[in-house]
């Protein structure tokens, strides 16, 4: 338990490096997804724009939502937001802090996707190839092409094999131009995002440090309290189950003893651990009855009190409960069969 606590504290105290590692992994995953994706421009006038912009904008949105879904703390935030006030006031600053830190982590993968897409150039080339300035780059005066025809020809720029407009504008010139624009946009986007991140991170100590320390402490507290409560409930459930089952077996063996009208083979105190563990069930018939009873009628979720206060200190000894007075036991036994 101590060792786990120490490791937990180490991770918490090094949370910066832990979170940086997670962000790095998400960024790499996003870049890997892009390179694995097989980009296939349709090379048709209106479809190009839709496809190119779709690939540029839809996966980042999905990645952003995925970042929230995969974050365990989202349910914690929702719970804290929706719970009734009770005896504990709700602090909006803590909720804001939790939401902001989750949103920041969820933004990493989409930003990386958009940057890699722009720096690669295929998306923008596909989306905007019909808007290439033919007057400056090629021969706009090439005869015999209406607007629609020209758009159809230009739309085939990303697909080199079927491009038939070399006289209008050479494929390499157009692709180089579009790629240059795309990469310039990409680097500007990267610079913008880095600047934003830098500002967000460095303005905080200048303005709101005390409030930040408070929000961070209480958001961490809420997280730990939830985990500890789950742990305590799990412990309680374990003990509950143990006592319930113990009481079931004892009830079983006493019932059967009463039914067979002989003294129960209760192990004497000095018979050793093994006899105690047998819980009074020592033959095949009894065991089969016990198993059948466990299936047919499970005991109620109601533990009997362990011992009546008898003034001579039974309660402090933690031994298996001695036999309480018979009438009460029988009442309980009948109850347990219902």
């Amino acid at each position: 338990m101590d060792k786990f606590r120490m490791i937990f504290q180490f991770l918490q105290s090094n949370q910066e490096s832990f979170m940086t590692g997670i962000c790095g992994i998400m960024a790499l995953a996003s870049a890997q997804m892009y390179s694995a994706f097989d980009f296939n421009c349709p090379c048709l006038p209106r479809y190009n724009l839709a496809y190119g912009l779709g690939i540029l904008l839809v996966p980042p949105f999905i990645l952003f939502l995925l970042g929230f879904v995969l974050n365990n703390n989202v349910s914690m935030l929702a719970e804290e937001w929706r719970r009734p006030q009770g005896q504990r006031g709700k602090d909006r600053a803590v909720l804001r802090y939790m939401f902001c830190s989750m949103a920041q982590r969820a933004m990493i993968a989409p930003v990386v996707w958009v940057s890699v897409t722009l720096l690669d150039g295929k998306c923008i080339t596909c989306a905007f190839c019909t808007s290439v300035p033919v007057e400056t780059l090629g021969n706009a005066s090439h005869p015999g092409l209406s607007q629609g025809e020209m758009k159809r020809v230009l739309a085939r720029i990303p697909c080199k094999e079927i491009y038939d407009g070399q006289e209008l504008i050479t494929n390499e010139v157009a692709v180089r131009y579009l790629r240059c624009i795309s990469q310039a946009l990409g680097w500007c986007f990267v610079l913008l995002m880095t600047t934003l991140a830098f500002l967000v991170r460095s303005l905080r100590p200048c303005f709101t440090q005390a409030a930040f320390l408070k929000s961070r402490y209480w958001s961490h507290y809420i997280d730990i309290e939830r985990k500890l409560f789950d742990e305590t409930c799990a412990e309680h459930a374990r003990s509950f189950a143990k006592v319930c089952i113990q009481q079931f077996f004892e009830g079983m063996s006493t019932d059967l003893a009463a039914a067979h009208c002989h003294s129960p083979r209760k192990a004497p105190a000095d018979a050793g651990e093994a006899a105690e563990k047998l819980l009074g069930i020592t033959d095949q018939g009894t065991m089969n009855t016990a198993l059948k009873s466990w299936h047919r009628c499970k005991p109620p979720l109601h533990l009997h009190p362990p011992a009546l206060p008898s003034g001579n200190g039974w309660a402090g000894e933690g031994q298996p409960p001695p036999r309480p007075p018979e009438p009460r036991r029988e009442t309980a036994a009948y109850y347990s069969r219902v």
Partner: protein
Amino acid sequence: MMDRFRMIFQYFQSNSESVMNGICGLLALASVKMYTCFDFSCPCLPRYNMAYGLGIMFVPPVALFLCGLILNRQSLVMLEEWRRPQGCRKKDLAVIRYMCSSIMQRAMVAPLVWIVVTLLDGKCLICAFSGSVDPEKFVGFANASAVQVQQLLAKVPCKDDELMRNNTSRKAVSRYLRCWSQALGWSILLILIIAAFLAHWLRPCFNQAALLQARHWSNYIDIEQKIFEETCCEHSRLFAHKCILHFFESMRQEIKLHSFSLGREGEGAEGEEDLLRGITDQDQVNKLLKAWYYEKPALDVSQALKGHYHASAQSKDQRVDDSGAHIFLQNPNPKVSAPGRT
């Protein structure tokens, strides 16, 4: 407890510098990797070349510099130290200056690596300055009109262009620019290394005592913040533990009040009874879980501590870390005085 603190303290002290150096090295490697992965494609158009070439040479270094500042934990520590109210502790500007300079030095490594690699590779400079070359020097361009010359020179970086494919003058211009680029790259590298060498060796000659002081206190501020965060974590864990135990206890009291059973006087029972905490029924468990959601207990464990200290003579609560509890568990509400042991 003290042993644990000492171990953690040694770990932090030995690793703070090496963690920062490691991040700096990783960023430099990432910078080189990004450059090799990046598909440089010069537009080969008269005005766009210069913008593209210089853009690729200078915009990524700025982004890398900002990344270096963001990823470095010490920059936050330095900003906090700079902006904090004076309080009972004076601010030493020398320490802040020292921290600032060490952060800047580490953040500058990745951008400089990018610039040097770009220059040594040559593609950027060829793209940016192919239009500014003097056409008289090269045979193929000497006898063409000005506009045509500009167009042709702009196409020099593109080897596969149909006009330029087998043009020997293109190769001449390309070689010429590349030579300049690499000379510039190596000179910058040499100057940087000499500067770093001098700075490293001449520093002990100037004000060594002040430097040692500044370094010690900057290290101290860093460690103090880490230990404060760690202490807060531990405190919140103990606080939560106490709060939950108090909640279970108050549930048990409430159940006792409402039920008429005579049992459950065995407060001191060990083992399973203790773990059950008086909750032995499906309804009671449901009630407890509902109360946890609908009425979370107040963030106030002073009652729990009072009860604990009174009962501590009789019963033992094995799970509470007694040695730590009384130092940390004071009432967070300053209006109510804490009953803790001093």
